[in-house]
């Protein structure tokens, strides 16, 4: 009814169906009721409106109108950034992103092989999309994940199928962030379910072990775990034996995420009424049948929002690996502006890197909203 636009009736002067006056329905009415209902509200609206318009115009001026998109590079590979510096902050120097985007995205990966990490990023995104489709939520997901992760490993390392070998310390940028986040959460989630179940177990040894694990890991910051993995752990190993730096960081992240997720899952387990457990027991289901068929589906459903919250948090926490010298997306961005000619253009780089993080986190958040609505449809009143 109200989706006839306010101006339609005036255009068709004598049309048969007349809508309500524009002061009563439609956007104008909404504006009158919500923004200009009294002198105070009008004043606030005008002041805020002015500030918002100023800010937006300032941003547009900075980001687009006055921006410089590329600068010449001299023979020695040194960029001539005088043009950018003469802006004195009135315009963005996107030239730094134009010049350095491949380094920020792929780090020190051999330049002519950049198609490989690029393909890896696409594979990751495809993997996320496939995994998010409910029609794939069955055994087929296991070979899909195994196959994709193998392909990713082959692409990153190479050494087979005519791809030159690329050692791990040359990996960098977005693939590192995606690897740490994906493997971290993919391993931490099953671990967290086991720990959460273990913490509610009647077996005292298992329960004590799980409580100890969760409390120990939650009691220290992720940074100190990464330090342990990077600085202390190698000293405990026998001479000449080295576990890959990335793998050590990855394990630290898995253990850390596992402890936090376990508490989220435990919250879900505790939210179930006792009757569910008793009903399952009454039907003669074994422990694993009960857990797999009755308890977990309901428990996990209720904790989707905090789960996704933790996922998003960990996606961003992977950037902490910068303290142990792994070039993830953020570190690569920071390193890009070390070069003297590009020093001082941090804002542009951070906007670029922030946008990439935003895309992934926003997609996760949107998807979880949809998932939550769909799975909890039966509860809607």
């Amino acid at each position, binding site marked *: 009814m109200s989706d006839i636009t306010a101006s339609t009736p005036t255009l068709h002067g004598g049309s048969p169906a007349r809508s309500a006056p524009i002061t009563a329905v439609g956007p104008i009415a909404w504006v009158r009721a919500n923004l200009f209902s009294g002198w105070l509200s009008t004043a606030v609206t005008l002041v805020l409106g002015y500030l918002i318009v100023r800010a937006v115009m300032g941003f547009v001026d900075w980001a687009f109108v006055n921006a410089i998109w590329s600068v010449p590079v001299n023979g*020695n*590979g*040194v960029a001539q950034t*005088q043009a950018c*510096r*003469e802006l004195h902050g009135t315009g963005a120097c996107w030239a730094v992103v134009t*010049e*350095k985007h*491949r*380094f920020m995205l*792929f*780090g*020190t*990966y*051999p*330049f002519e092989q950049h198609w490989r990490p690029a393909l890896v990023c696409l594979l990751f995104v495809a993997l996320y999309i496939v995994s998010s489709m409910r029609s794939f939520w069955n055994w087929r997901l296991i070979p899909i994940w195994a196959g994709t992760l193998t392909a990713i490993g082959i692409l990153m390392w190479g050494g087979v199928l005519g791809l030159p070998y690329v*050692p791990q*310390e*040359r990996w*960098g940028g977005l693939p590192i962030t995606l690897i740490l986040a994906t493997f971290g959460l993919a391993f931490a989630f099953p671990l967290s379910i086991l720990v959460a179940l273990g913490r509610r177990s009647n077996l005292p040894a298992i329960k004590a072990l799980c409580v100890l694990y969760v409390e120990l890991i939650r009691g220290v910051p992720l940074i100190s775990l990464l*330090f342990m993995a*990077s*600085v*202390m752990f*190698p*000293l405990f*190993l026998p*001479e*000449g034996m*080295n576990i890959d*730096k990335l793998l050590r960081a990855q394990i630290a992240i898995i253990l850390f995420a596992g402890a936090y997720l376990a508490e989220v899952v435990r919250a879900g387990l505790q939210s179930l009424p006792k009757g569910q457990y008793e009903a399952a027991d009454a039907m003669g289901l074994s422990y694993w049948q009960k857990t797999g068929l009755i308890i977990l589906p309901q428990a996990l459903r209720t904790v989707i929002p905090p789960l996704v919250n933790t996922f998003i948090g960990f996606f961003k926490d992977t950037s902490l690996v*910068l*303290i*142990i*010298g*792994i*070039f993830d997306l953020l*570190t690569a961005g*920071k*390193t*890009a*502006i*070390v*070069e*003297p*000619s590009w*020093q*001082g253009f*941090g804002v542009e780089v951070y906007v670029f890197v922030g946008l990439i993080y935003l895309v992934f986190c926003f997609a996760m958040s949107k998807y979880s909203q949809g998932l939550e609505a769909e799975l909890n449809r039966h509860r809607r009143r």
Partner: protein
Amino acid sequence: MGRSSVKQPVRPTVLRSLAAALLAMAVSLPATAQQQPAAPASVTLDAIRARGTLICGVNTGLAGFAQPDSQGVWRGFDVDYCRAVAIALFNDPDKVRFVPTTAQNRFTALQSGEVDILSRNTTWTLSRDTSLGFDFAGITFYDGQGFMVKASLGVRSARELDGATICVQPGTTTEQNLTDWARAARIRFQPVVIERLEEVVNAYLSGRCDAFTTDVSGLAATRAVQPRPAEHVILPDVISKEPLGPLVRHGDQRFSDLVRWIHFGLLTAEEFGLTSQTIGQAAGDARPDVQRLIGRSGDLGRMLGVDNAFMVNVVTRLGNYGQIFERNLTPIGIQRGPNALWTTPGGLQYAPPFR
């Protein structure tokens, strides 16, 4: 005496068997010794050779010293020292794997064997040399903490900074050096402590502090990228000694010898005027020192366990010390200063003779 004479009969047999063993070794030794005059018994060198690449710990990003360029290729002064070692060993500057290390994990990386050599603007101090268990192979860069002020202030010496606000980064020794120096010089100052380099520089530029202090190399790099560098003055006072150089693990003298003499070789090449362009034609040079450096006389390379012409390979690909300095540090505004050769006044870079 009497007791020892009782035991006497036992000794000769032990001695005899020992002598026999020594004789056997002496017979077998010359054969191997002729192939390698000073066969290096070095765990690190053997591991590097078996691996086929050198693993070098570098800074995660420091202008001029170590930083990946837009294509992800590592460049810089410290990086070139890694490449020099790789050239000496394999005659290939790309047989190096660079492991970025932070200020926190650099020493563990070397101790645990994750890297073979740490070439990462690390100051040579007594405790690092001894209790951390490292060998510093030499001083490739003499640095020190200094001050930068705006030229308009008219300050000529750091002693005139009494009552000034000084921008400094926390955590490193920089802050402590500043406090120590101020106490010794009886100067009161107001510190403005900011973590990130970019922000601390902005604070100085916007006038929040009168002076900015960090290592002179860092000051020069900051000054060089300002729109009008002449507006800033780096004061002549240097309040700390920061001798930087590559370091290796203790107890592997063969490897530290090699790294040390590559550095000396680069200095010697500059001293004799041999550049990447001219060292190829140095065979006709009559100076005996040059002949030894390029491996045409003497057996110096083999004493280090590498090819006799190792310095020719290094200098041809990377240039001598001066050329490495010019390529990496001159563009960011760092003067030779104390890093000039000893033959120039004020220069400290001095290499022992190649003989």
